[in-house]
């Protein structure tokens, strides 16, 4: 433990992108108070601007928006927008940070984002380039950053606002605001906050394409950057998802993507930006899905598809979507003056020069450390590396050079979203371990009055919201409220100006008491944002929170029918009638409080298992660390250094020591888990080891299974003593005398094992450089398919070339061959660049064989009912945003059997999994039940449909031979209820009777009208 004796239970997270958001949520959910400090007017970062995400091509906003809402509504997260950290004093555990907050000129507690101020601005049309639309769209001086922004409130840009520029403006916005939310007298605020630790997540900025002037960005209208193209693809973007050329608004047919713009280029950034190959592939596919006429071509140097699911995305792009990949670095783009088409000159792999015309060129710009992040590092006294990214150690990827200050995401180097999320959870885990004693000291647990059981007939109160003029401007809300009064069961109906305002919430509670309401219906906006707020309100009044129904008459009515006010009013009435019908049928649902055993089971005692165990134990939880083998950290055996020069054996020794002597870690070697039952918070596992069987009770499981080096059958391996794998070479590197060494990459990578193992290129570079260090006169050849020296690893690739390592590219279809002849090893390879067969007489052949998942995973998968993918790797809950969670609660994963990774990546993943697990354990108890499915034993025929369908393993066959659903495991998705052939399953709050009542109610009026 370092730093002061005082530990504060609050944390500052700087940067509101996906990394900062995930850190804030994890830290706050672990029992700490979080200040989320964002420089811009809204959180969301770059991910909010993306249309889709690779490799699944899911909608980015659909994934991000719930996170934005969650962090925005979190009782223990305070979002500070337009704010920056100016100074940091104190020590770990007890810091004082100085915050500078620029004025927004809008009170976010009053603004309801109705947009009247914007509509009334003296600029009739948006005039200024929108930051969110990357300059492709325009905004006014007063604007809402984007539709899903959090906080959802207007902001005034003083740089463009006439009032600030000249003082002569009628300030129509001020008059238009019905909520008196605008305040032009706001000034900059400087204040200090007490926090125990900081996490910095200031992210990256796209490389400025203007600096790569040979491509004509900013000069030629139809040259865009990839982030701009992302906005063009977005349905909510400046063209509503139409892919059109800026010059003439026409649909482009041929689109060229140029890779490595600003990356892998000594004139710009020497490193690889790690994400561009995949985002270009994604954008090409998505563009094609928008308009099948589009013919995308991607010009690249190496195609770096090294992450989970990347290889198959590229294959789909090539084979199914006919995306053309051309291996060629483009040196110039020329505009054709008449058509504004672009001429791209390239040389294909056969050496021929081509000039090809494209309608649109997209520049795959790389990532660079943000200027804001570098300034922050300077103010806080953090060291940056040569590229301007935060300096961290290879074995502690989220720790900065200043104690108590953690760094995460693209601030530490180019990263994709899952890696950012993993680091975010890892940083949260590090913070919570540091501040563990102060857990819960700054948060405010909520206390509620006792719940009353509703007696007798429904007494429904209906509150119809005006939402300023958002609803009332179209719908006759008074008529809707009057109509609601006539509906059976309604004892109170009224109009409210803003249902969600604090004064109205208070008013609802008063009416509930006064009128003895036992059901509440609010007719306003989407339940997605506010249902939880209203449920909380009625719970505060003592009513079961499930006796609430929300009717959406804004997004689904007034906004979409704004030109048909009369019909909209009729529709609103129908919607309210349906809501009231459901309310009449609503039942109080009970939630039970389940105690959580504050104990973790970590399966696997390799690097990841040890890191996970230590992280959990440092956070104050007991850990059972179970290892099948005799030794801990055996996956690190025979490995000596990392590419960056980290000492692997001392890492192993330190970890083993720390684990062994930690009072909270119980080590079981030579032990397997033979049985596991229970559910989150209350698992029970059977361990079988040298001392017989033991049953342990625990709250969570972390699977920390490592991947194994593939033992090849190819290239005389096992038959010839001069053919080794990379790991075998590393283990004996010091004694190698060979002069000519040939390394062959992607050994054993074939149709059955098509994925990239991510680590082998780095291993080859490391060993090649070390061998040359020993003896500079060696000849080292690396035969490769694609060099995957992604991110900062690119520097080592360059160094290896500078030191004389010869890299020869071979084609997947014609791999090299190795033979022994006349007591000599001969390697022959077809060099794709020279288009010639090359014969090398080698003293030593080293095979980069990649990694395969541990076969034991299959048993674990059966035991825990968690899925494996086609290659035997575990499948996480969500490839982007829940990379270390399993879909079933209480189960987490890390290690190489999740996906291959370098040591630093495995460490981050293990810390992240432990952090996620610690969130569960920190809660002490959780609420189960509520919206869950139940089986009617009278109707169940034990057909097993539900058992097979349930993605969470909540269904089991009970002693009576019938299906039963464990409430604590059920996530309320409703799949079983929908699929049960006997209609034996009901989902609480969405019972058949409730849904049917709504449908009947909708058609009743129609039928009588006919």
């Amino acid at each position, binding site marked *: 433990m370092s730093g002061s004796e005082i530990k504060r239970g609050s944390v500052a997270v700087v940067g509101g992108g996906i990394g900062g958001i995930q850190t804030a949520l994890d830290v706050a959910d672990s029992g700490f108070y979080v200040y989320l400090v964002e420089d811009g007017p809204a959180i969301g970062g770059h991910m909010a601007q993306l249309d889709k995400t690779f490799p699944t091509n899911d909608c980015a906003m659909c994934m991000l928006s719930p996170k934005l809402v969650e962090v925005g509504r979190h009782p223990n997260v305070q979002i500070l927008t337009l704010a920056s950290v100016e100074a940091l004093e104190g020590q770990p555990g007890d810091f004082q940070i100085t915050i500078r907050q620029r004025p927004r000129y809008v009170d976010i507690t009053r603004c309801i984002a109705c947009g009247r101020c914007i509509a009334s601005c003296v600029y009739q049309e948006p005039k200024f380039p929108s930051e969110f639309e990357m300059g492709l769209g325009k905004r006014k001086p007063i604007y809402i950053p984007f539709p899903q922004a959090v906080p959802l409130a207007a902001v005034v840009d003083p740089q463009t606002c006439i009032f600030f520029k000249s003082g002569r403006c009628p300030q129509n916005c001020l008059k238009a605001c019905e909520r008196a939310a605008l305040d032009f007298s706001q000034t900059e605020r400087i204040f200090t906050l007490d926090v125990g630790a900081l996490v910095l997540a200031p992210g990256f900025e796209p490389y400025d394409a203007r600096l790569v*002037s040979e491509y004509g960005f900013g*000069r*030629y209208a139809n040259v865009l950057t990839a982030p701009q193209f992302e906005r063009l693809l977005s349905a909510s973007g400046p063209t509503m998802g139409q892919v059109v050329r800026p010059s003439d608004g026409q649909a482009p047919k041929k689109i060229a993507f140029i890779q490595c713009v600003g990356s892998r280029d000594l004139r710009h950034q020497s490193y690889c930006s790690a994400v561009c190959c995949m985002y270009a592939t994604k954008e090409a596919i998505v563009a094609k899905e928008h308009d099948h006429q589009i013919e995308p071509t991607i010009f690249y140097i190496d195609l770096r598809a090294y992450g989970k699911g990347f290889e198959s995305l590229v294959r789909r792009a090539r084979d199914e979507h006919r995306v053309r990949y051309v291996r060629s670095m483009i040196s110039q783009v020329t*505009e054709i*003056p*008449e058509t504004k088409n672009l001429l791209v000159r390239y040389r294909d792999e056969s050496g021929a020069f081509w000039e090809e015309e494209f309608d649109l060129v997209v520049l795959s710009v790389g990532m660079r450390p943000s200027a804001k992040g570098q300034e922050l590092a300077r103010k806080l006294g953090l060291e940056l590396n040569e590229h301007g990214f935060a300096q961290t150690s290879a074995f502690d990827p989220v720790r900065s050079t200043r104690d108590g200050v953690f760094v995460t995401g693209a601030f530490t180097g180019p990263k994709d979203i899952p890696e950012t999320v993993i680091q975010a959870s890892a940083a949260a885990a590090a913070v919570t371990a540091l501040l563990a004693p102060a857990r819960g000291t700054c948060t405010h647990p909520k206390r509620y009055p006792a719940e009353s059981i509703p007696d007798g007939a429904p007494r429904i109160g209906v509150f119809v919201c005006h939402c300023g003029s958002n609803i009332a401007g179209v719908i006759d809300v008074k008529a809707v409220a009057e109509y609601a009064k006539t509906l059976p069961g309604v004892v109170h109906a009224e109009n409210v100006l803003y249902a969600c305002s604090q004064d109205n919430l208070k008013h609802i509670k008063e009416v509930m008491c006064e009128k003895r309401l036992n059901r509440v219906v609010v007719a306003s906006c989407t339940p997605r944002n506010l249902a939880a707020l209203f449920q909380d309100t009625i719970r505060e009044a003592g009513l079961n929170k499930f006796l609430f129904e929300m009717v959406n008459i804004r997004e689904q009515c007034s906004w979409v029918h704004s030109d048909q006010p009369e019909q909209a009013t009729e529709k609103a009435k129908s919607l309210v009638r349906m809501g009231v019908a459901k309310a009449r049928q609503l039942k109080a649902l009970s939630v039970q409080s389940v105690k959580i055993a504050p104990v973790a089971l970590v399966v696997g005692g390799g690097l990841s298992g040890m890191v996970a165990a230590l992280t959990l134990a440092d956070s104050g939880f007991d850990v059972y660390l179970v290892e099948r083998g005799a030794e801990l950290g055996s996956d690190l055996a025979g490995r000596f250094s990392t590419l960056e020069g980290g000492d692997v054996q001392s890492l192993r020794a330190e970890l083993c020591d720390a684990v062994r002597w930690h009072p909270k870690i119980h080590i079981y070697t030579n032990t397997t888990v033979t049985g596991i039952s229970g559910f989150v918070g209350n698992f029970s596992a059977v361990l079988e080891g040298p001392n017989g069987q033991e049953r342990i009770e625990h709250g969570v499981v972390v699977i920390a299974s490592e991947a194994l080096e593939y033992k090849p059958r190819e290239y005389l391996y096992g038959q010839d003593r001069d053919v080794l794998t990379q790991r075998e070479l590393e283990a004996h590197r010091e004694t190698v005398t060979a002069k000519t060494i040939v390394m062959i990459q992607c050994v054993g990578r074939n149709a059955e094992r098509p994925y990239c193992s991510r680590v082998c290129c780095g291993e080859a570079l490391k060993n090649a450089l070390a061998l040359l260090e020993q003896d500079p006169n060696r000849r080292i050849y690396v035969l490769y398919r694609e060099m995957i020296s992604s991110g900062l690893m690119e520097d080592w690739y360059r160094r290896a070339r500078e030191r004389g390592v010869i890299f020869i590219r071979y084609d997947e279809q014609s791999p090299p061959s190795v033979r022994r002849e006349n007591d000599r090893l001969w390697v022959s390879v077809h060099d794709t660049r020279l288009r010639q067969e090359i014969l090398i007489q080698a003293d030593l052949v080293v095979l980069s064989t990649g990694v395969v998942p541990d076969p034991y995973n299959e048993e674990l998968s059966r035991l825990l009912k968690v899925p494996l993918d086609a290659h035997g790797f575990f499948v996480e809950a969500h490839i982007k945003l829940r990379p270390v969670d399993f879909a079933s609660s209480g189960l987490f994963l890390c290690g190489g059997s999740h996906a291959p990774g370098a040591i630093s990546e495995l460490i981050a993943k293990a810390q992240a999994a432990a952090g996620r697990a610690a969130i569960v354990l920190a809660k002490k108890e959780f609420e189960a039940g509520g919206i869950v499915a139940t089986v009617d034993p009278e109707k169940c025929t034990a057909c097993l449909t539900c058992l097979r369908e349930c993605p969470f393993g909540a269904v089991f066959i009970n002693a009576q031979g019938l299906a039963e659903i464990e409430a604590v495991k059920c996530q309320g998705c409703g799949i079983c209820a929908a699929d049960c052939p006997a209609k034996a399953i009901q989902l609480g709050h969405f019972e058949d009777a409730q849904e049917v009542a709504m449908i009947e109610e909708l058609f009743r009026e129609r039928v009588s009208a006919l």
Partner: protein
Amino acid sequence: MYFYPGCTLSSSARPYGRSIYWVCERLGIEITELPDWTCCGATSAHALKRDLAYALPARNLAIAGELGDDLMVACSACYSRLKITQKALEDSRTRERIAALIEKSFDRHVQIKNILEVLGEQAPRIRQEKTHAVEGLRVVCYYGCLATRIPRVMGFDDRENPTLMERLVVAAGATAIDWPMKTSCCGASFSVIDEAIALKMSAQLVEMAYRVGAEALVTSCPFCQYNLDWAQWYLKKSHAIPVLFITQLVGLALGKSERDLMLNAHLVSPEKIVCRV
């Protein structure tokens, strides 16, 4: 300020040399021909021997250094060789070696200025004092491949999209048209070695100038002017475009006669554009 004319300005590019002296005098830019200057080595020397390629320009730099004044250079190849040499001489070992070769020292740093930089400073004056001689003339500015490259060495303007010449053209009252081949190569000395290559490259340039609707090409490089002019003569295009030096255009705008500016010395007659006015 000393002026390094280079070999071409008294031979194939005499109109350039003459118009430079006139325009500079007219704008009050005092230039003196660098005494005892020698060839920069141009495209040949650096293809043969590195130290020879450094020694030739270095001699001129040393003379300017001894005399203690800035050095203006008009030819892009001379400018490129002088700048590259100056950069190479930052290395102490190279400096010693070259100093021994030419028996001169480099005690004082010489500021090497491209003629575009020098004239650029006078753009406001040109705008004020111009006549209507080239008013509205649609021109494309052609920098060639050497003037702005190597970027880290040259650095007086953007390497791919320089705009200094456009500013001068606009100041002179003409209309500058943007086009995509400002810094493309004209074929340079291939016109001597392998005509077909140079012809093809120059023809592409002229073709593009025609397509964007230019009435004249303006350049600051003698070799580019020569190639583009010669190529059109050779190809006998129906739509020939005269190729002027930037100082000729500025000279016209400042009231000098076409005869004094040697416009008639070009192969493609600038008659059309001059009579038009």
